[in-house]
């Protein structure tokens, strides 16, 4: 393989890892505060649709991004209301959000544009153009979110409190800090990041929304989150690794490796899921989630 192919693979790996990274960081914020979020997929999908619809309506990619973020945060708040205020089952709420998003985007898209759920194709200013090295501003915003997440969670008073809420909410409550407030903040931040992820798909990478265009990326992001053991820099590594697998799957198609023979594309596609299962089984290392993740906080307990 010559340098040209390597650069191509690196470039497409970066492109493919950006939505994963944004969604993964969203999950990181949410779960670090103790709110399990398997609705990443749904929020991304809603943001992708709202983003494309907004960009089309206002003729501006930035307006689209804003609309996408607002939609994603709104869905996130539904999850927050169910899991924080109503102390409902967070997994059930996540499943509901994924179904709602899949159905609503298709039905509203069909009702508005009558193109089988697609938005009209976006062009010119309705999309994010490249600003540096052929990548759009969204790519750099998402990359910047990694050090910001690392710094805020690890080096600030707010971050310390937020992590504490995910480990031992009773202690935070005793210190006179609102558990509910911190968790809602985390859920909103997660909504913003999912908004970036979804908008990147429909107005950065593609030129418009397609039904179910997230295609399971929210779940790969979830896998990456476990892989990164709920930390920001490893999240970047895990997402880039999964992006690299995706990119090389396209390149390796039909290629025969010495000693192994032809590698089926599906084997590479299966790797993120398989590696997550193996990691969770504790065969290589151990992935321990935040202690209070998934548990509603009951004050008087």
């Amino acid at each position, binding site marked *: 393989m010559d340098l040209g192919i390597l650069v191509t693979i690196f470039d497409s790996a970066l492109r493919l890892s950006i939505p994963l990274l944004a969604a993964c960081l969203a999950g990181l914020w949410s779960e670090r505060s103790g709110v399990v979020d398997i609705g990443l997929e749904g929020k991304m999908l809603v943001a992708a649709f709202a983003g494309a619809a907004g960009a089309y309506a206002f003729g501006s990619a930035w307006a689209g991004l804003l609309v996408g973020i607002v939609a994603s945060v709104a869905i996130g708040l539904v999850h927050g209301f*169910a899991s924080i205020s109503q102390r409902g089952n967070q*997994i*059930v709420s996540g499943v*509901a959000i994924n179904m709602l998003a899949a159905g609503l985007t298709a039905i509203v898209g069909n009702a508005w544009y009558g193109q089988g759920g697609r938005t009209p194709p976006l062009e010119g200013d309705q999309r994010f153009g490249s600003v540096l090295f052929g990548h759009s501003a969204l790519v750099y915003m998402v990359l910047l979110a990694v050090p910001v997440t690392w710094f805020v969670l690890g080096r600030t008073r707010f971050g310390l409190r937020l992590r504490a809420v995910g480990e031992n909410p009773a202690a935070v409550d005793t210190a006179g800090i609102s558990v509910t407030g911190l968790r809602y903040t985390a859920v909103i931040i997660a909504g913003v990041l999912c908004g970036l992820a979804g908008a990147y798909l429909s107005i950065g990478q593609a030129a418009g929304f397609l039904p179910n265009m997230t295609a399971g990326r929210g779940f790969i992001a979830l896998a990456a989150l476990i892989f990164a053991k709920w930390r920001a820099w490893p999240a970047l590594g895990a997402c880039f690794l999964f992006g690299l697998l995706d990119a090389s799957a396209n390149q390796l198609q039909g290629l025969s490796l010495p000693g192994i023979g032809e590698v089926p594309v599906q084997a590479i596609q299966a790797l993120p899921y*398989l590696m997550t*299962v193996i990691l969770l089984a504790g065969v290589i290392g151990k992935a321990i989630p935040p202690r209070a993740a998934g548990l509603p906080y009951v004050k008087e307990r």
Partner: protein
Amino acid sequence: MSAPLDLPKWADTVLVPAISVVAAFLVAGLVVLAIGENPLTATRYLLQGSLGTGEGLGFTLFYMTDFIFVGLAVAVAYHAGLFNIGGEGQATLAGLGIALVLNNLTFLPGFLLIPLGILGAAAFGAAWAAVPGYLQAKRGSHIVITTIMFNWLASVLIVYLLVNVLREPQSMNPETRAFPDQSHIPFMHDVLAAFGVEIPASQLNLTLVLALAASYFVWLLIYRSRLGYAIRVVGSNPTAAVYAGISPARIIVIAMVLSGALAGGLAVNELMGYQHRLLLEFTSGYGFVGIAVALMGRAHPVGIILASLLFGILYQGGAELAFEQPAITRDMVVVIGGIIILFAGALDGLFRRFVAHLFTRQKLARA
């Protein structure tokens, strides 16, 4: 799930789910209004298409059969305190089991081949659920995450097998060759015609009887057997289970095996009863509908049958509705499913408090 509020049993098991479902339909009606259609007309088309004709009713019951199986699958795991969202993957693997049995034992007569096919479905579905169950029981891997990953693994695996291994060489479609004729589960209209009863032709087949039998079996198992008692103890208090001499690890694996086997029923109905070949994406997201069905039916077989009938009506009626009012596509059913999961599952406490509030007011008024 512990009930923090004191409610009469009938209110808890019937009234609360009923109110949350009604609320879900009201919200769905708002969605229909928002896209500029009339919810009442839509409801009329929906009911007419699903219950108004004999053919429609047949299709409704066909979908109901699917949902009973996936609903029971979620429910059995739920009683053991496990959230099995891997129904899609388990049913997919069950389909593989069916194809392997039926297309390799073509020489067998139907009365042997059909039970073997059903066993193949149950065994493959159970095996695909047993691994996450084992990992949860022995290694502490969270069942929700592993079953999600297993769903994706199943979908990748089935694509690989259908494209590269099981596909007929001369066929362009990623599907197996047709199952042998004697392995088809008879259609209900053919069975009844043999007894001189004429009903309109539909996809409805004898798997419905199997689904009802499975519901009765699950009821016996959960509420009338020693194993079911152990499952419920582990589900409500694993620590107490250990003191009672029950091994939670063993029960978790058993519950997941049963759950996966039940999810396999979806493949039996779809493939042996109707499609008569293994093809991609035959599960159509029904595994997730099973979650809605189980939550709505309070994980009780009777509730699950009723909830399955409701979703059968929605799916069949939704197809007819999409035909009459093209703006309301079948995705509407997915939306309704999502809202029901949200209301009957995650926001359960909200509706429970609402009902409890009504009851206390009534009591105060009487006093």
